[in-house]
């Protein structure tokens, strides 16, 4: 009995101390990591999906509450007027969530999408990174059926990467569903 108690106490104590130090490290590295993520992951994606703006979308970013979920909106403005905005959405891929940046104009049309982060199988599912494939989302809108062509939708599937391309299509579709609400909230 005493022996078992000793096992439990030691292992618990180690876990507690280690989790506590992890919390400290997390706090200490939080700020630079957020800056890095925005500059290295989001900025290139934002630049890829927005066009014709003259403001700084990252500096002008605003957080919008959609049914209790915070969505960050990166506005594209020309001469102070909204011409479109970018925001993030997510699809459920084979290896976890697929993070996608959407760029939309003020009429509900897609300027483009950019897959920012994913954990799809290298060499198979990661073909969703293909810029040419991503470009074919351009011009789709809130009216588009975001399922694969095989299932009667408007999105081209990638052969061999059906699950991953479905994840992207669904993510984009999910993003477009909140478009109207976002537009009302940011540009009134």
């Amino acid at each position, binding site marked *: 009995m005493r022996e078992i108690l000793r096992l439990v106490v030691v292992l618990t104590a180690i876990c507690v101390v*280690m989790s506590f130090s992890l919390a400290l*490290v997390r706090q200490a590295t939080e700020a*630079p990591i957020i800056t*890095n993520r925005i500059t*290295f992951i989001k900025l290139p994606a934002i630049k890829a999906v927005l066009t014709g703006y003259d403001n700084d979308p990252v500096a002008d970013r605003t957080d919008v509450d959609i049914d209790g979920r915070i969505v960050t909106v990166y506005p594209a403005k020309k001469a102070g007027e909204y011409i479109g905005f970018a925001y993030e959405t997510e699809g459920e891929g084979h290896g976890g969530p697929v993070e996608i940046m959407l760029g939309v104009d003020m009429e509900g049309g897609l300027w483009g999408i950019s897959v920012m982060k994913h954990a799809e199988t290298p060499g198979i599912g990661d073909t969703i990174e293909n810029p040419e494939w991503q470009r074919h989302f351009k011009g789709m809108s809130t009216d588009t059926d975001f399922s694969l062509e095989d299932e009667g939708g408007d999105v081209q599937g990638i052969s061999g990467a059906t699950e991953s391309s479905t994840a992207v299509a669904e993510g984009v579709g999910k993003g477009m569903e909140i478009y109207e609400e976002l537009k009302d909230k940011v540009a009134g």
Partner: protein
Amino acid sequence: MARIVDEFTKGLWKEIPPFRFVLGLCPVLACSTTVWNGFGMGLCLTFVVVCSNIIISLLRKVIPGQVRIACFIVIIATFVIIIERVTEAYVYGLYKDLGIFIPLIVVNCIVLGRAEAFASKAKNTLPLSIADGLGMGLGFTLSLTALALIREPFGLGTITLPPFIHEGPIRVMWASYEPFSYLQKPPGAFLCLGLMLGFMNMIGTGEKS
């Protein structure tokens, strides 16, 4: 003192982990595509090995034998997450290139191997464990860098140094050099590793067998 030097230097040649023990091969094959990736991976692993050796050595009389592996893994995983966050915060390029291989240090057999075979042994004092971890980590770094020094110049025609020394790859081959892109692929890594093992065995350990 001589013991400390011995424990440190054994990792650099006599027991250099990937080449002598053929251990920890996953990052050796995957992260030796460029010199900076290999070197950076090595440094990350060195950090983890040294830190986990320190903690495990300090706790070696406290940790009960029955739950030692669980304790080791918790300690190792903590340092892996620390190095992952630190690289993401301060050396983002490396973090991005190494990707999944940083979290995978948790299951690297060199780290657990040193904890189990060296740091947790009652007779090995703290300085010895630090020397052992440092030696093994640096040996691993050397191996990765050596492999990358074959794979990168021949496979890409370049050498990539750490970004704080020189940003971007430096071209080392002549202009018309057509790179063996095969060497950048996993089979190329096996080829280089095999040649390296053969070479190391040819030279021998410096001891009479």
